[in-house]
C-alpha cells in the first residue's frame, strides 16, 4: 500500500517535472481562479447580510421589539413598562413609539409616509437616526410644532431625481401641513432632514411622542417599544430575561421583524451564489478532466509499458491522482494569494451598497467548504480519465 504510493508519487513527480509546463501552469491558474470564485461571491453576500442586519438594528428595530398584547392596539402603562425594562441588566435603552399613516402636503406636493412619534432622548439610546442628520437638527424632547423627515421624502426640485413620491425639494425651516388619520390637520416646521442610508428611515417622517399624544388625546401608551441590549446575538436569551422580569407583551427579535425582507434578499443572493458555485466546480471538473485525460491518452503507450513491466493499474491511477492533487494544491495556494490581494484592494476601495460599505466576510467555514469541494472535484476529475485509459489491454496500448 505504502510502496504503491511511493511508486505512484515518483511517477507523478517525474511526469510533472518533465511534462508540458505551459498546460500545467494554465491549469493551475484556472483552479486558482475557480477557488477565488468559490470564496469571493459568498464572502460579499455574507458582508451584505452583516451590513443589512446592522442597519436593521441601528435604524429600524434595535435588538428587541415589544408590541401590544393580543387584541390590543396599544401598550398600556407604557411609562411603567419602560422604567421596568430599563432596569433589567443588559438593557441599554428603551424607546416607546407610535406608528401611524399621515398625509403631508407642501406646495401642492402630497405624500403619505409612515409617521413615527418618538421620545427623542429615548430614541437616541436605541437607534442611530439622530446621528444622521443631513441638514438642520434632530428633534428635541420638548418640540411640538416641529417635524423631521427623510431626504427621500424631502425630495428634489427636479422630480426626475426622486425615488419615491416626495415633497418636491422641501428645505429645513419650511412649514408643511400634516393631516393625521383622525382627520386633524396641523402645521409643522421642518427641523431636520435625515440621510441615514436606511431606506425605511429616509422615506418617512418623525414627530415627538408628546405631540402625537396631544393630537390623538392619548397618554402613557405606545404602539411599539424598541429595546437596545448590550450585545447583539443573544436576543433569544434577552427575550427570556424580559419575560422573567414580568413583561407580558409580545416580544419580537429584530430578526423576526425583518425576516421576510432580509430572507428574500439573502435568498436571491444565495441562488446566484449557488449557480456561481456549481458553474465554478463544473469548470474545475472539466478542466482537470480534460488535462488528465489528454495526459493519459498521450501516454497510452507508456501506460501499457508500465503495466507490462509489472506496475499495477492502481499505481498508475494513483499517480494521476497525485498529479490532480498537485494541481489542486498549488491552484488553491495561488487562489489564496489572489484572494488576499483582492481583499486588500477592497479594503482600500470598498464596494458601497445602499446602507454603507460592504466588508467581505471570509470565515474559516467558507474556506474549508470551498477547499473541500475543490479537492473532491479534483480527485474525481483525476480518477475517471485515469481509470478509463488504464483499462486498456496491454498489447493494444503498447502497439499505440
Amino acid at each position, binding site marked *: 500500500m505504502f*510502496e504503491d504510493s*511511493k*511508486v505512484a508519487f*515518483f*511517477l507523478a513527480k*517525474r*511526469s510533472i517535472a*518533465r*511534462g508540458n509546463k505551459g498546460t500545467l501552469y494554465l491549469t493551475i491558474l484556472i483552479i486558482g481562479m475557480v477557488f477565488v470564485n468559490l470564496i469571493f461571491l459568498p464572502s460579499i453576500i455574507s458582508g451584505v447580510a452583516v451590513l443589512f442586519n446592522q442597519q436593521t438594528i441601528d435604524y429600524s428595530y434595535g435588538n428587541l421589539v415589544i408590541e401590544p398584547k393580543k387584541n390590543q392596539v396599544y401598550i398600556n402603562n407604557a411609562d411603567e413598562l419602560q422604567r421596568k425594562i430599563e432596569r433589567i441588566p443588559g438593557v441599554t435603552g428603551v424607546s416607546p413609539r407610535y406608528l401611524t399613516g399621515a398625509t403631508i402636503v407642501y406646495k401642492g406636493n402630497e405624500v403619505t409616509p409612515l409617521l413615527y412619534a418618538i421620545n427623542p432622548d429615548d430614541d437616541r439610546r436605541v437607534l442611530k437616526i439622530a446621528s444622521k442628520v443631513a441638514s438642520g437638527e434632530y428633534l428635541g424632547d420638548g418640540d411640538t410644532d416641529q417635524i423631521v423627515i427623510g431626504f427621500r421624502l424631502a425630495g428634489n426640485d427636479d422630480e426626475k431625481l426622486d425615488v419615491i413620491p416626495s415633497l418636491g425639494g422641501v428645505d429645513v425651516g419650511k412649514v408643511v401641513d400634516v393631516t393625521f388619520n383622525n382627520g386633524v390637520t396641523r402645521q409643522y416646521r421642518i427641523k431636520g432632514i435625515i440621510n441615514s442610508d436606511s431606506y425605511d428611515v429616509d422615506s418617512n417622517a418623525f414627530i415627538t411622542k408628546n405631540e402625537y399624544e396631544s393630537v390623538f388625546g392619548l397618554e402613557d401608551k405606545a404602539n411599539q417599544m424598541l429595546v437596545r441590549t448590550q450585545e447583539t446575538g443573544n436576543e433569544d436569551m434577552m427575550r427570556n430575561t424580559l419575560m422573567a422580569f414580568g413583561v407580558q407583551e409580545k416580544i419580537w427579535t429584530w430578526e423576526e421583524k425583518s425576516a421576510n425582507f432580509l430572507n428574500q434578499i439573502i435568498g436571491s443572493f444565495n441562488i446566484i451564489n449557488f449557480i456561481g458555485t456549481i458553474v465554478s466546480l463544473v469548470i474545475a471538473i472539466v478542466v482537470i478532466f480534460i488535462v488528465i485525460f489528454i495526459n493519459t491518452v498521450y501516454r497510452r*503507450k*507508456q501506460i501499457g*509499458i*508500465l*503495466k*507490462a*513491466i*509489472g*506496475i*499495477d*493499474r492502481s*499505481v498508475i491511477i494513483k499517480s494521476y491522482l497525485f498529479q490532480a492533487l498537485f494541481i489542486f494544491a498549488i491552484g488553491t495556494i495561488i487562489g489564496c494569494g489572489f484572494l488576499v490581494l483582492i481583499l486588500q484592494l477592497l479594503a482600500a476601495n470598498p464596494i458601497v451598497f445602499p446602507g454603507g460599505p460592504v466588508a467581505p466576510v471570509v470565515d474559516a467555514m467558507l474556506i474549508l467548504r470551498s477547499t473541500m469541494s475543490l479537492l473532491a472535484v479534483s480527485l474525481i476529475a483525476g480518477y475517471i480519465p485515469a481509470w478509463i485509459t488504464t483499462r486498456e489491454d*496491454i*498489447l493494444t496500448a*503498447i502497439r499505440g
Partner: protein
Amino acid sequence: MIIGSDLRRYYGLGAVQVRALDGVSLEIQKGEFIGVMGPSGSGKSTLLHLLGLLDRPTSGSLLIDGVDVGVLDERARTVFRLRRLGYVFQDYALVPELTAQENVYLPSMARGMTPQECTLVCSDILGVVGLGDRIHHLPSQMSGGEQQRVAIARALVNRPALLLADEPCANLDTRNSKVILDLFRKLNHDLHQTIVMVSHEEWHKSYFDRIISMKDGVIETETNGNRDSDSMGNPSG
C-alpha cells in the same frame, strides 16, 4: 521450469478467425538460452506474449516456475511479471519521462526495495550492461543500442526467473546487435539466466542452446543451436 501444453491463441471468430498459435507444447529448462525463429506471421510474438503474461491463451495451460499462471487474476499476473519475468521489446519501450537510471529503478522500487538497495542494484545492473556514464540521460538522448541496454537492465533488475526478448536487435546495426547478444550470452553463462529470444537473423543461431522454429502457429522443428558451449567456459578459447 516452463511447461506449455497445447497453447492456442485465436483472434476473431468464424471465417475471419486467425489462428496465431495453433497448439504449441514446449518445455524449457532453467538456464537455457532459447531462440524462437520462423517466418513473419508464424506466431513468434504471440508465443512470447503468452510466456510474458501480456496475453492469455485461448486454450492450453502454462506453468512457469511451478506456477499455473492461467489461474492468476490480473493483479497477480502483474505481480508475477514484476517479480519473475523480464521483457525486452523490439522498440525498447522505455518510459520517456524517466532517465536511464530511473527506468531501471522503477521495477525495483515497485517491488518494495529501499532506496539504498534500489540504487545499489541499479548501478550494478547498469554496470553489467555497460552503461556506466550515461545513466542520467533521458531515452530521447540515447542511441538505439544504449536504449536497448537500458531496457535489458530494466528487465533484469528484479532478477527474473525468465528473460523474454522479442527481436531485441531488429532496430540495431550488426555491431550493436552483437553487443546485445554478447550481453545475453554473458548473462546466460554467468548468472544462469534463462532466456527466450525471438530472432530473424541466421547468424544469431550461434548464440542459442536450442532453436524453436515456428510456422503457421505451430512448432515445426526443434534443433540444438550451433553454439559451442565449451568455448565459452574455456579460458583458452
